[in-house]
């Protein structure tokens, strides 16, 4: 049982929670994730990246979007409530190096959350960090101040131009690849965004790291549900990742596998939350 210490609503359906988990706070490193179950009896195991931690307070921070049944249930929890199960830190930590050339950190939507500790770690290692963060519109942009705190330069993109540049994140990324010769690009966000970031950097041969969030059950390698094709090999996101060379990931296969239960979930959703006449409650 892990207590929710603080809850902040970042946008319509995005929440930030600080949760008591002293051992995870002590051990975790940038790039790692946890798996939680909101209520154990029939709950689902949900993997979520650790967006930050306070070792002294013994807490970790998660940021999530209430999209499915389980994340919606999590979003309804309040400060002082408990989460039944929390396991972590899982996955390999981000490989942080000091480069002579800039590091570009690209975050899209909710992907800015896992990006934040990576930006911090690269900065603390003495790198020049350029961050590109994007969202569909201004209201959906999260963690701008936190990203600014550890970036030498921040470029903001929105799809509708309501804030920053009216562009996809790949546009400034391309410009930087052309003009600044970055040492490494880290891109985290929706799978399609990561795919196109990797395609953008490929002609410039810039090392590109992506963080994959696939379907997972145990998060310890046991189930193999998270497997992805990387190069010619099958890798398990939970133990081999979550970060991989974006130029080698088969994103189309990964996106397909993410949709494994889409049809069933739609079926499921259309019953739950509807009243007997089929209207929304």
């Amino acid at each position, binding site marked *: 049982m892990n207590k929710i210490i603080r809850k902040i609503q970042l946008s319509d359906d995005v929440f930030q929670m600080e949760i008591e988990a002293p051992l995870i706070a002590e051990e975790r490193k940038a790039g790692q994730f946890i798996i939680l179950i909101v209520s154990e009896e029939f709950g689902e195991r949900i993997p979520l990246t650790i967006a930050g931690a306070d070792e002294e307070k013994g807490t970790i921070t998660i940021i999530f979007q209430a999209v499915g049944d389980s994340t919606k249930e999590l979003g309804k929890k309040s400060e002082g409530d408990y989460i039944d199960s929390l396991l972590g830190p899982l996955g390999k930590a981000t490989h942080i190096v000091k480069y002579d050339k800039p590091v570009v950190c690209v975050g899209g939507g909710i992907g800015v959350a896992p990006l934040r500790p990576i930006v911090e770690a690269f900065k603390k290692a003495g790198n020049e960090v350029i961050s590109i963060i994007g969202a569909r519109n201004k209201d959906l942009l999260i963690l701008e101040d936190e990203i600014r705190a550890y970036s030498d330069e921040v470029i903001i993109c929105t799809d509708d131009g309501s804030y920053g540049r009216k562009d996809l994140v790949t546009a400034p990324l391309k410009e930087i690849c052309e003009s600044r010769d970055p040492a490494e690009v880290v891109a985290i966000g929706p799978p399609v965004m990561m795919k196109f970031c990797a395609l953008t950097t490929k002609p410039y041969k810039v090392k590109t790291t992506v963080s994959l969030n696939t379907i997972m059950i145990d998060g310890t390698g046991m189930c193999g549900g998270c497997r992805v094709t990387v190069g010619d090999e099958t890798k*398990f996101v939970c133990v081999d990742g979550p970060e991989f060379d974006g130029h080698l990931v088969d994103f189309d296969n990964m996106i397909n596998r993410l949709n494994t239960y889409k049809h069933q979930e739609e079926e499921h959703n259309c019953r739950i939350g509807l009243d007997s006449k089929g209207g929304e409650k």
Partner: protein
Amino acid sequence: MEYVSPDVLAKEADELIKTIDPSALNPKSRRAIPLQEMPSQDPLVRRNNMEEVALGYTESQVKLEAMRCLQCKNAPCISGCPVSINIPGFIAAAAEGDFEKSIGIIKESSSLPAICGRVCPQETQCMATCTVGKAEKDVMRSVQIGRIERYVADWERENDKIQVPEVAPSTGKRVAIVGSGPSGLSAAFDLRKEGHDVTVYEAFHKNGGVTVYGIPEFRLPKKIVEIEIDTLVKMGVKIVTNFLVGKTRKLTDLLEKDGFDAVYIAAGAGLPKFMGIEGENLVGVFSANEYLTRSNLMKAYDTANSRTPIYHAKKVAIFGGGNVAMDAARTAKRIGAEEVHVVYRRTEAEMPARVEEVHHAKEEGIIFDFLTNPVKILGDENGRVKGIECLKYELGEPDDSGRRRPVPIEGSNFIIDLDACIPSLGNNANPILSNSTPDLEVNKWGNIVVDENNKTSIDRIYAGGDIVLGAATVILAMGQGRHAAESINKLLKA
């Protein structure tokens, strides 16, 4: 074998037992007693539910079966048991109807009798050395040791007779156990009995390891596992869930920071094997671990309540021939698949699955494709499984395992249309502990290397079960747990 209803089996046993004078039994008359079949749910009914298939003997049945035991002086069965249960002893007590004495004898050696009575591969262990089976030239006709074990364990539970074993006064020593599966729990039992403070760490949110995530409800009800674990908790064993040793805490930190005096690693096998064939990452391909965990641990079969989805397929193929393959096949059937194939490259005789499980699967309508192996998984335009291309095999010369080697027949390719497949080919060693513990020696397959005392390359750290053996069985893992506990007891006494 025809399906015989539980009522008929019960009635036959009740009538037969009246005709037997136990005091007059001799080897010849013992051998004349018919083997008692296990009553089970009707196959047509059970394939639509998750409830236990085997229903357990009646009192008359268990006594009759126990009377078949010849009480051999040299007790060859004991040597076939990885935890050395006094088998003739508990069977003699069961034959007399003294079930309390019977379960007491088992519990001297085993902490999980209701589990072992259900899932041990008796035919390759205790039953394999049974004199009755030898005389009948058929191991399946040996005394049904596991069924008797199950009866007395169930009798104890159902009659509220479970006694919490006595625990020695506190030694002040602390032992950490990694993993709450059969091996870890057996070690916990033996170490706690000696008076050590024992903490078991489990990565999942529920205890029991493979017995709760892997073995389906219809073969081993979770309630039984819970009650057996509860006895350990009553003995004072602490169990911490949601704790992954190697990640939540480094292995060596358990000794250095947390003050444990010894550690036993029973983390299980861990990484499912795939075949490396084309199409293995298509949507609709699941490892047996994933499929079974969804269904068992996450209760995905209970679609009304569970939040965890499970893939609904009409035609499913399982690759492999072990118990896990049988479990996956029978689960698929229960979840609603119309047609379930077990694709296995050898013949039925070489299948590692228990005979009883194969028999149950056949009764439930599972189709077996022997001497067949998939070479390619075929996908549709949406990247979902639509079939498998297979090759026919024939048996050649015996290989290292002594089994005749399956040889592909060239050009025999054919296609089975289906919409899901479940490779069930065993597991590789999980790398989490070895990756986070540089001094821990592992072999080229990633299994932890131990000496004859189950000690690893690091002082005070022991290991056993599947992480050492590769995928094995519940009872072998338990045997290792007991052996390691003995070594740790010696270490802590020194």
